[in-house]
Structure formats: C-alpha cells, structure tokens
C-alpha cells in the first residue's frame, strides 16, 4: 500500500519496565522482516524508573523508533495516543514486558495480505511464560489449529475467546477502534473489531511471549472483585444488550470464560457488597447466564464438572430426571450427568462425623425434593437453597450435610430419596 509509510506500526506502552524493555526491543530487532519496515511507537506512560532513558537510546539510534512521554494515564490512553500516530498498514501491540518470536511479524503480515478484505483482525499464538518456562497451551488452540479465517457465527468457534493483545489489526486511521479507559480494555477492543465482520484470521506462525513473571503487571494486581466486578458486568451487559436477539455464541464464550476463571481463582463474587446490593449483583449475573446457550457452559474445555453444574443451575434449564435405576441431570434434551448411587464423604471430628453428599446433582434440587434416611428413618440435614439463601455462593457449600455420632456410623445404612425415588449412598 503506497499511502502507508511503514508496513507495520508496533505500539508499546512503557510503564516501569526497566528490567524488560531491552528484551522487548531486542525481539523486534531480531524479526525476520527488515527493521526499517516497522514503526516502533514507545509510549512512556509516566514511568518513574529508568525506562525512559533506556527507550531514548533506541529512539536516538533508529529513525523508525519514536519515543513519546506523557503523564501516567494507563495503557489504554497510551495506546490511543500511539494509534493517532501510527503510519503502518498494520498495527501490532506489544506490552513492554513481553516479546515476540522472530518470524511473527513477517508471517502475520503476509497472511493478513492474503485475507485483507475478509477480516479486520488476525491473531497469532500467545504462550504464557512463568520464569521463562511455558505454561499449558490455551484451549483456544484446540479450535485454532491451522492458518485460516474462522467464522465467529459458527458455534464450533465459540471458544476462540480473543481477549489478549496478540493481535494484528488494519490501520483504518481516523476510523480505528479506540481503547476504553476501563479495565478489560483488551477484551472490549477485540470484541468491537471482531463484531463488524464476525470473522477472525489466525496465523499459525509466530508467537507472542507473554511474560507472567512480572508481578507489577496489571493483570496480577487489579483483578480483585472490588476493583473489577462493576466494570466487567457493565461491559458484558452492554455487549449482550447490543444484540437484540440471540447473542452470538462467540460472545457468550467470552463472557462465560471470564466468569469461569474468576470463580476458579476466587475472584468472581463481589463479596464486598451486602444486602440488596448483593442480591442485585447476583440477579445481574443470572440474567447474563440466562442469555447463554447451555452448550457454552457444557462444552467449555476447561470448566470443572462441579463448576459446570453450578453455572448451569444458575442459568436454568436443567432437570433432574430420576428413574429407579439412576439419577440423571438433563439439559436441553441431553444428559449431562448420570449416577447410579451417591457417595458420602465423611470427616471425623472427635465424637461426631460430618457427612457431605458432594454430588453436583444437588445444585439442581431444592431441599423439599430431598429426604435423607438413616436405617429407614428420615434425619435432619442442612442444605442451602440459594433461592432463599443467596448469601452462600461457594459451590462447595451447596451440598447436603449432616452430622452423626461417630460410634453409630458403622451400623448405619444411609439412603436418599430424590423426588420420592430412593437411592443408595455408599
């Protein structure tokens, strides 16, 4: 394209990364593409360490490296600042503590050229490194298997969840999508670009080396619910509301994935809220879940069985079908759980034993549907119903529990009646 001065612009927000910036710049100098085809935009976002001096060395040495220093406003503003100055046909984003493998920019650009009219965004592999060791590969690469264009309207692509900046986008100059100043800015940015064409390109060559050793990184510090709950809920509600009918499976996947990992890391529930505010927050969560397909939850590649049932229970649409032979949980005409008997986990505490019926089938039941019997006689048990008792949100707490004297345990036979049908407890 003759009217662009460079082939690519690489946007690098710089904030207190003196340890990493050299590595980052080095990875760009090592690219297989000629260095002067790239415009490097270093935006010093008010660093208080020696980052600025380190960057200046590069800016003075190379004509295509530009350093801008501004007051600290966060990565989003820094990126927007750079977008206004980008003169490359394509735009890459690189965080100053991360690097890219040498063939990345050349391969991604040449693939992008071949699908220029079809997509607005091309993604490439991102691998997380802790202390220079790669961690497990993200599940999205079970979908993104080879270079090509992926249709985001196709439900089988629902778990691509492009939420990081391992992307290359077209430079549309004044029409560029800008970053919001809120958190989750990467996610929102990618969603906004992708929904235009509902297609994403994937280039199999190249890799974004995502350094998770840097504890100052935004991701590791600010994702606690007090900071993020309101922002992310608002973001997801706006996203869902922008689709008057069914929300495309891809965007359901984005939101569910966020819910999923936050619950796993105990960062999901806004426990700082109380009373009506807490109830309202839970209603908001449930209303987002109710707009997701069951498949988004059931098929997610990295949700545990326990959590899957927890989320499905909140979403609704599951039915416990108990035949005399087995207990099944069915959702949209498919069984997602099938049990012949139930297991009792026991914890001995001196004279008494705490027993828990830890099966996700109970997420889908209410206390009135369940009777627990010891030697044929009904016994008292506690079983939290989240409809009446919404304060409890830890999935582990939502199982029926009861206490028996340890000395009678050996001659006790327990059974449970679910909707009047009786099952053995082992």
């Amino acid at each position, binding site marked *: 394209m003759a009217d662009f001065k460079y082939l690519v612009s690489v946007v690098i927000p710089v904030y207190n990364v003196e340890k990493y910036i050299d590595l980052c710049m080095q990875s760009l100098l090592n690219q297989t593409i000629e260095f002067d085809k790239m415009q490097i935009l270093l935006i010093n976002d008010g660093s208080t360490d020696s980052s600025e001096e380190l960057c200046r060395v590069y800016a003075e040495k190379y004509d295509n490296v530009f350093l801008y220093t501004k007051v600290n406003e966060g990565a989003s503003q820094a990126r927007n600042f750079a977008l206004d100055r980008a003169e490359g046909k394509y735009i890459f984003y690189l965080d100053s503590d991360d690097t890219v493998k040498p063939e990345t920019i050349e391969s991604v650009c040449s693939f992008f050229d071949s699908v220029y009219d079809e997509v607005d965004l091309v993604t490439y592999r991102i691998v997380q490194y802790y202390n220079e060791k790669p961690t497990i590969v993200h599940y999205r690469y079970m979908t993104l298997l080879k270079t090509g264009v992926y249709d985001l309207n196709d439900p089988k692509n629902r778990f691509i969840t492009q939420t990081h900046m391992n992307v290359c986008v077209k430079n549309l100059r004044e029409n560029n999508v800008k970053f919001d100043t809120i958190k989750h800015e990467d996610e929102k940015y990618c969603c906004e670009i992708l929904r235009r064409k509902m297609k994403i390109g994937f280039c199999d060559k190249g890799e974004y080396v995502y350094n998770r050793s840097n504890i100052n990184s935004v991701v590791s510090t600010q994702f606690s619910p007090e900071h993020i709950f309101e922002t992310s809920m608002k973001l997801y509600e706006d996203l869902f509301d922008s689709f008057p009918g069914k929300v495309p499976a891809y965007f359901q996947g984005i939101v569910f994935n966020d819910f999923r990992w936050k619950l796993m890391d105990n960062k999901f529930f806004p426990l700082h809220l109380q009373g009506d505010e807490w109830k309202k927050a839970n209603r908001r969560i449930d209303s987002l879940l109710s707009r997701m397909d069951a498949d988004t939850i059931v098929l997610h590649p990295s949700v545990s069985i326990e959590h899957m049932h927890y989320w499905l229970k909140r979403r609704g*649409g599951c*039915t416990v*079908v*108990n035949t005399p032979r087995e207990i099944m949980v069915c959702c949209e*005409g*498919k*069984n997602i759980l099938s049990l012949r008997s139930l297991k009792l986990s026991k914890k001995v505490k001196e004279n008494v034993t705490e027993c828990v019926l830890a099966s996700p089938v109970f997420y889908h039941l209410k206390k009135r549907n369940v009777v627990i019997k010891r030697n044929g006689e009904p016994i008292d048990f506690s079983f939290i119903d989240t409809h009446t008792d919404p304060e409890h949100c830890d999935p582990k707490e939502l199982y029926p529990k009861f206490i028996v004297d340890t000395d009678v345990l050996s001659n006790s036979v327990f059974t449970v009646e679910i909707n009047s*049908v009786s099952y053995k407890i082992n």
Partner: protein
Amino acid sequence: MSSVNVSIILPEVSSAEKFNRFCSSLFTGNLNIELLVCDNSGELNVNNEYSQFVSIVSSDNKTEALNAAINAVKGKFMMFSDENVIFSPDALEKLIVASAGRSAVCNAGIINNGECSQAFTGNFSSEDIGTKPVYFNHLVSCDVVRKNPLVLCGSDTLAIMLFLADYYRYDSFTFLREVLLYSDGDYGFSSDESILYLSQYANAFRLTADTSATVFFVSAVFSALLPAMNENIFSVIKAVVNEFRDDTLLLSWIRSAYGVDTDMLCDENSVYADFKFIGSHIYYREVTLPMVPDAVVRNFYSGKYGIDMLKKCIGAWLHYKFYCRKDGFLKKFGCKLSRKLLGGDFVG
C-alpha cells in the same frame, strides 16, 4: 371465575412411586395447577402432600372417564400427561408465555436405558409432531376445547393424538423448541379403539382442516398404523388415503414420508368401485354421494379412463343431478336419459 391456570389430565396411574415423582416435578412453581387422574380401579389412593390439588375421575369405561375429565377441567389451559413425565422446573410457565393465551407445544426428552435424547430435532414443525406418540407436550386452551365438539374417541395413544390434531383444526399453535419435559416410559402407538373412527376423522380433516392440521392427523395415523400392518389396517389406510385422493400435494407428501403407494390405494378400480356403489344406490333410491367430476375429467385426460368410462361417469353425474330435483317430468325424463348414457351396468 377460574383461578386454576392449568389442568393436567393423567389417563392412568400404575405406580405410586412414579405418581409421586410426577407430582413433585409438577407442583413446583407458583402456578395454580389441578390434576385430574382417571382411575377405573377405584384403588388409587392419593396420599401425598399434593392431594388437595388432585381429583380422581372414575368410570367403568376409560374413554368415558377421559371425556368426563375433559368436561370437568377448571383451568385456562389443559394438558394430557403421563405418569412417566418429569417437568423441568419452569416448563408450564414457559409454555403459557409462549402460547399467548392459545396453545403451545414444546420438545421433549426421551429417556431410554440411561440415555436421554430429544423426541424431535431442533427445528421440528407440524410435519413432525404427529410422527411420535408424544402427546404430553401440548398445552391447549380450554376455551377452544369447550366451544368446539372435541371429544376423545378412545383411550389409546392414537385417540389422544387425534384429539390434539382435531384441536388444531380450530386453533393455531406455537412451537417452543426447548426441551421442557422428560419421560422415561415405554412408548408405542396404541390404536385399538380409535381405528374405527379414522375415516370419519379423515372426512372432517379433508373438508375443514388447513394443511398443518391435516399433516398432523395423517402423520399420526401412518406412524401408528404402518408398523402393525394387517388386512384390517390396510383397508383403514386405504379409506383415509381415498378421502384425500384429490389433494395431490398431500398424497405426494405421504408417498415421500411413508413410502406408501398412494396411487395404488386410490386407483381406477377403487374409483370404479365407488362409481358402481353409487350406481347401485341409485337403483335403491338412496343416493348418498355424488361422483367428484374433477377426478373423472382428470382421469380421462391422463388416459386412465377410456371414452366409455367417461360417458358412464357423465351419465352417473347427470343421473344424480336429475335425481336430486323435485319430483316431476324433468326428473323422470332426465333420469331416463342419463340411465341410457350409463349403459348396462345400471338398471333403473
């Protein structure tokens, strides 16, 4: 004023355990539900926490009990159900919302050997709902049932399907493609009693029903009868197909969906047999049915009828027309003339 939202009719109860399970899945929400159980044994003892919502309808004859239950419903909506059914927690609420005050049908999950599958494919339509003996997924409006002459002709599965197909002659229905209930019963079409009434139904559908109701009816009949083919069933199917012999679109649909040679079932012989039947009735002065002129003309032009046969048909038709006139010279003369056209088969 009726405060009951939904009346559920249970044609029979065979196991207390299943009945209790059925009740615990039915009475969950905030709806006012009445449950009418048909029980002829007089042995059913409703002994659970829901007994106040349950009434028992008994009669020596099961069909009468079911029709009595239909007459006794107090709800705005009614639904036939089965003790093997388990409702998902908000099934009835969702059906009521979807029905918009009329009727709605949802998908059902069928449990078989510990596996669950959907009764119908995701986008099922009126072509599909008759094909399976699944009647417990239709929520219908009691007003429509009361205002129209809807009765059950038997107590078998096909009778209930026919009732529902008949219902759809009077009301449109909304498809809710979600699976809202599950069943782990053994399903098969039973049709012992209702088979006697099929030609009457067929006549009513031909004369008054729209395509989707007709397709519902025809597919229920074929799905129920074809697997148990015998001489008796063959003649019933023939009678049903013959009723729709002018509806070429429907016949070709039957051909493609069920592989039935509809041409063979309403071939020239059977038209000729009808023709002779009418003719003999002319002789006995009990004319019941005119020939269908369109069919005769079409058969002539397609080469099925020769010129002689056409003449006979025109003769029979004219004879019928004259015969229906007031007594007098014109009737006498016309009948004489047309009998001549008819030829030797008919002796006036």
